[in-house]
């Protein structure tokens, strides 16, 4: 066996136990007779040795799991039953602008009709005032300028839904 062939085997199959016994014996025989190849084998054993930093298993820092969790779970928010309920309530409590406007127009029409009805009973006047007030309120809602006023004069926006 020629030296270059032996050296190729020394760097690969011979070193890694991938040769059959007969091939190994041929190489062993060559090494006994060839000083240069024997020296090359010693160099391989001396320099081509992998010694990883730390022999045991390493552990990633806790921030690695945090980043994985963010990448995986935050892109898929859990759809709990409460979230579904709040979404439905949101739809009912904040109707589309077109619906709000239609309701306001209907109230105005009712007010006008009531105002034209003969008679001046206090109940009628109270009802008329109430409807006018409601019509103004819903018009404002339809334009998006108003929120639900509460008794304290603050915003009555149902902000708790945002936390669900």
């Amino acid at each position, binding site marked *: 066996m020629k030296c270059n062939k032996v050296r190729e085997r020394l760097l690969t199959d011979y070193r890694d136990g991938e040769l059959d016994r007969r091939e190994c014996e041929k190489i062993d025989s060559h090494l006994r007779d060839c000083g240069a190849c024997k020296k090359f084998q010693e160099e391989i054993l001396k*320099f*081509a040795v992998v010694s*990883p*930093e730390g022999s045991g298993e390493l*552990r*990633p820092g806790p921030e690695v799991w945090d980043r*994985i969790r963010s990448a995986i779970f935050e892109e898929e928010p859990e759809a709990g039953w409460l979230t579904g309920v709040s979404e439905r309530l949101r739809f009912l409590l904040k109707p589309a602008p077109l619906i709000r406007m239609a309701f306001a127009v209907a109230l105005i029409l009712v007010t006008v009709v009531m105002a034209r009805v003969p008679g001046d009973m206090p109940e009628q006047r109270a009802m008329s005032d109430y409807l006018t007030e409601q019509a103004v309120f819903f018009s404002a809602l339809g334009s998006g300028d108003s929120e639900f006023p509460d008794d304290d004069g603050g915003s009555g926006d149902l902000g708790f839904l945002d936390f669900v």
Partner: protein
Amino acid sequence: MREIEKDLIEKAARGDGAAFREIYDRTSGYVYTLAYRVTGMKHDAEEVTQDVFVRLYRSLGSFKFEASFKTWLYRVTVNSALNHSKKWKGIRMKERGEIREDIEATDASEVSKSLEKEDAGREAKGFLERLNPDQRACLVLREIEGMNYAGIAETLGINLNTVRSRLKRARESLVRMGRRGGE
């Protein structure tokens, strides 16, 4: 690393976060260590670990159990680490070149000091990371993970002769570096 039970994988695939966390706890050390050995950088190993587990989570549902989970994880980790190394090698060399140009413009003696310091640091870390990523991966799988040529070929998706030639070149380089005393 012990093999992960089929039940646990199926639970995680159904969206059970605790099951996925258990898989992470049991395999992340293995993934991170392997990634570190292939990339040679702790920061890169962390990014590879993150990438592997995000991919794992998204693939769990389609995992067919034809290959062992361990083999699958091995393959994904090594290939992700190799891609990462190749991608960042170019960027780092470019950055290194730019830094070199910047310093050259100001003080030439500082440049040589800086590069000497950098080289000394690299030398201390060993010759392994000086090899190209493909050769390093083969060497890590063979020498540290104890895989035979067929296993390396399967993991990296290459043929046996490519495994052989990469190992040969890697060891030739190590011998050459050793002769020059770390040149």
